[in-house]
């Protein structure tokens, strides 16, 4: 059912585009009375902006596509901008009254209510200190308001979120690496699984927390993850292979 509608866009899938590159979609000039085909609009993800029948690229990167008509720019970025429903690793910076202020690496600190933990009530407060790491989800994250985090999902369960962190190492990597780690079929994750057993917490704000059985193994994995940003896939596999053979 490939309509010629987004053909100019589809040609460029997988290509590197720059801000200012524009696509115009052709308007339908014949209407078939027998088909109930509605003119379809493309769904624009990050990096693409729509105005009228023009689509303009606003970030440099690779154009990606998910059928039927979702397009977005896959770009390399280090600085995080909060977005709703994303899970991030935050560092608690202050406790004031009923709200914790959490640093998520964005332009503003996010607020986390003490009641937003599993099983928390006014009498049963969660044990959160300044400097703790929390894995939380955004309920409010737009450009105009202060971002708000919660450590419970819609049904009140923690679902892996909350305070964590003894004995591990927190690193900062690019947002692209984090997305590659969290993708359903992730090469990097499957390579890591064959190395040593380790615990990984991956936040979409570019923060990764690692803990393996010994400190040395933890450091090896953290160095590997940080270098994945600059290595190509074959170079990375070479590094992993060297480590598996025991060379350091």
């Amino acid at each position: 059912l490939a309509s010629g509608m987004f053909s100019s866009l589809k040609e460029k899938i997988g290509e590197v585009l720059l801000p200012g590159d524009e696509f115009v979609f052709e308007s339908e000039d014949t209407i078939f009375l027998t088909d109930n085909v509605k003119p379809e609009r493309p769904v624009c993800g990050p990096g693409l902006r729509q105005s009228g029948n023009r689509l303009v690229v606003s970030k440099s990167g690779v154009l990606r596509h998910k059928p039927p008509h979702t397009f977005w720019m896959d770009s390399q970025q280090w600085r995080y901008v909060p977005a709703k429903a994303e899970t991030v690793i935050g560092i608690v910076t202050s406790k004031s009254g009923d709200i914790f202020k959490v640093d998520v690496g964005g332009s503003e600190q996010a607020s986390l209510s003490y009641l937003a933990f599993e099983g928390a009530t006014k009498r049963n407060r969660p044990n959160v200190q300044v400097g703790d790491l929390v894995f939380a989800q955004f309920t409010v994250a737009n450009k105009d308001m202060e971002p708000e985090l919660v450590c419970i999902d819609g049904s009140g369960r923690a679902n892996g979120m909350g305070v964590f962190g003894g004995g591990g190492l927190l690193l900062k990597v690019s947002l692209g690496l984090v997305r590659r780690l969290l993708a359903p079929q992730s090469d990097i994750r499957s390579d890591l699984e064959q190395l040593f057993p380790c615990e990984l917490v991956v936040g979409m704000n570019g923060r990764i927390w690692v803990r393996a059985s010994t400190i040395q193994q933890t450091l090896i994995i953290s160095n590997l993850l940080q270098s994945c940003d600059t290595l190509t896939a074959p170079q990375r596999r070479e590094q992993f292979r060297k480590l598996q053979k025991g060379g350091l």
Partner: protein
Amino acid sequence: MIDGRDGDTSVMAGVYGPAEVKVSKEIYDRATLEVLLQPKVGPAGVREQSQEQCVRETCEAALLLSLHPRSSLTLILQVLHDDGSLLSCCLNAACMALMDAGLSMSCLFCGVTCAIGADGDIIADPTAAQEKESRALMTFAIDSTERRVMMSSTKGSFSVQELQECVAVSQKASEKVFQFYRDSVRRRYSKNL
């Protein structure tokens, strides 16, 4: 780092943001852009401040600042070597740094400098020696979508005719710079494709 064509003018650009902004400097509906130009030797003076203003106004026109209200964007330009065409080198470095940082932009821009020699001939991207002997010196910021002039900074005396000729020369030279941007970004993403 962008190198000038004939000389070796080099400027290093760094972008920080969107980050927290001081309440005195915050703007309620858009980001606050601050540009700092550090010369190679000595402290920044009034000349650097006027160059900063040129770069800042160009960047503000190209960036989508309304996506980050009450945040700050800082652009720091460090001059590594100055052999002429400094302002256009700063503009090019600024554009590439903003694009690389992942800030949303409506278009790209580039800087081109033209010098008019004593005998009326137009030199694009002059070296420091050529700038000294010129009768007039102009720098234009050209946008990538329609090749229009976004910013112009001129020094010296020239006629309207000469100005229009310089604009045409700059628009033609901008093609090469935009192609360089495209090639650089392609190389950057080729590793992870």
